[in-house]
């Protein structure tokens, strides 16, 4: 018997504790993080300045010197891509004015960073807030539209609900994991969460269709085949994102890749334990009735 068969032979319902606990803990983290404002947010949503410049030589003191010059909180981070390009990311907790930007450039030029090699992103807090509100709407609407489509497609409550619950849990747990790992909510990670809505339901749709719509063989065999297909799907997506993360040097694409990788792992648990558990219960109960 393969590992998969052994796994499926077990009573999956007792594993349901894992996804349920995950969802509950995730909800607590996200809700408290949201209400207390401690969810890590990028300057896209809280306003501020991000400067990106090629990092050459010693850049350690830049943060300190910029903070002294501008009087704002400054953080720096060096990121490198697969080709050895190193970039210095500078986060400043204030939307710099044209004049302040000039002073910042002067400081950087002392470190040999040419003025025209600096990428900048300056966002006022009010705009950040507007973007954040929009991000929330985008996520809620995308989710709601997806949910309606699922219910229209399968037309039975429990299985449709299971798909939607799995997608919901994917997003909540991914958000919570991001928060724990300090991954910021940004333009890129928002795109990733939206993609996750799509990817997450793909495997659930596959499972539900194989189990409920195309019925042949026994239940376990159907689940097993769905699992083989679904895991291949998730693994290819995960692999592609891992490559993107390693190769790309853009913050937007890095964020997308990182969040989808987390989401894929979360989705495996939600689809193959939670959703399978619910469907097994549903099918067995229906068989008895």
């Amino acid at each position, binding site marked *: 018997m393969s590992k998969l068969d052994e796994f499926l032979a077990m009573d999956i319902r007792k594993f349901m504790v894992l996804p349920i606990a995950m969802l509950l803990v995730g909800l607590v983290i996200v809700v408290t993080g949201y209400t207390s404002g401690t969810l890590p947010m990028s300057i896209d949503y809280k306003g501020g300045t991000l400067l990106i410049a090629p990092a050459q030589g010693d850049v350690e003191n830049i943060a300190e010197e910029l903070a002294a010059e501008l009087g704002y909180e400054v953080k720096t981070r060096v990121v490198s891509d697969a080709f050895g390009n190193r970039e210095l990311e500078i986060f400043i907790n204030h939307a710099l004015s044209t004049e302040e930007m000039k002073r910042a450039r002067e400081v950087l030029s002392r470190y040999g960073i040419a003025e025209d090699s600096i990428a900048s992103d300056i966002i006022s807090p009010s705009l950040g807030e507007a973007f954040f509100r929009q991000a929330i709407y985008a996520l809620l609407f995308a989710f709601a539209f997806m949910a309606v489509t699922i219910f229209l497609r399968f037309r039975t409550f429990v299985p449709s609900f299971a798909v939607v619950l799995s997608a919901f849990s994917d997003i909540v747990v991914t958000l919570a994991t991001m928060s724990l790992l300090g991954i910021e909510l940004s333009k890129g990670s928002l795109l990733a969460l939206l993609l996750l*809505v799509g*990817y997450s339901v*793909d495997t659930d*749709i596959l499972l539900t269709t194989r189990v409920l719509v195309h019925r042949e063989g026994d239940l376990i065999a159907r689940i097993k085949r769905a699992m083989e297909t679904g895991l291949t799907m998730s693994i290819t997506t995960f692999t592609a994102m891992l490559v993107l993360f390693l190769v790309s040097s853009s913050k*937007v694409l890095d964020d997308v890749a990182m969040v989808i990788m987390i989401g894929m792992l979360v989705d495996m648990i939600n689809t193959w334990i939670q959703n399978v558990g619910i469907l097994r219960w549903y099918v067995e109960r229906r068989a008895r009735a």
Partner: protein
Amino acid sequence: MSFEEIIKIRRVQVLLALVALSLLTMYAHDPPLSLGWDLSGGSELKVKTEQPLPYVTPDGTTVTMELIVEIMTKRMNGLGIKDFSISPWGKQYLIIDFAGTDPERARELVERQGKLVVKVGNRTAFTGSELVRIAPYTKSLSTGKWEVPFTISEDAAKRFREVALEALRDAGIEPESVTDFESLANDPRVPWVEMYLDDVLVNSAPIGASLWQEFIVAGKAPRDLVLETGSDEEAEAQAKSVEVVLRSGALPIKLEVISVSSVPPELGMQFAKNAAIAGIFAIIAVALVIFLRYRAAAIVLPIIGTGVSEVIIILGFASLIRWDLDLPAIAGIIAAVGTGVDDQIVITDEVLLQRTYSMRSRIKRAFFIIFSAWFTTVAAMVPLFMIGMATLKGFALTTIVGVTIGVFITRPAYARIVEHLFGKTKKVRKKKGKR
């Protein structure tokens, strides 16, 4: 199963034709793809209007998003700025992208006031700052002609009269000798009123008979003026354009720059290059995973082949409609191709693992799953259009276009290839899943 036989499948021919067409489209365009400011280098400004639009100013002007966009566009054109785009977002924001413009310059372009000078025969009559009020263009009830009423300051009005009379004398006409004002207005020797925006001539119009009469007979310099353009549709467009030009000196509402983003061309190129390389490596990695699962090159090649075709067709489409590819759009392409590979795995497994069914029904079953996934993806992306920030729009568009091309063109082609590869041979392959 030979390569020649696969080529003969109609669905595959359609796919190949589209790939060829896409390549041709890209080849015909220069540059093949237009890259967004975050990849080609440039700046993006986000601007907030003082009031939500539409807004009626105290002097009765209705300020709309369209008006602001038009004024800004005219201003940029006047300054010779070519690669820019202005898109409204919601009721109070504008997003302005500049390709190849550094952020300080971009900010200056948006914040500066346009320099409007109105001349008659090379002499300055008045400037934009002397315009007291500009009314929206309307169709006059009395004359039935399109017109733009506006008011200038007293000094400007006097100067306008003097300059007009001097221009008349320059043309060899003594103002006092004129009796027929209708023919004076149509006299080709008489110079027209010319409007210059940042030293570029943008509009001109003759001085009307009634105004000449006031200037010469009554000796008056009226402050309230009307610029008539005519009664046809073209005249309406012209009146609209005149209003925009008059307003371009000072915007009817205050704008505040609330965000400035910029990417230097070198860094943008590096992003684009890395994304392309990441794409190639991702394809290789995915091919490897698929090979590990199926252990058959006959499956890996069509999956990767159709995946690559899909990217080419999406890019061809982007090239055709001159869609600016930015980083979010690239994320959309990645999403579409990722979904594509997932769907092809579904097709492959239905075909390989459900051997008790006819080939047709196996394919049909695969497409039930694929269409369900497609519905949900499109449903999730459509609201992003309505919410409509530029970032989300580009992403949503490429995702929707990508998955739709996938569902209707590339997936069916792949299905037919798999059908041909595994449908005709009765030989049952080693059962999958036993490891």
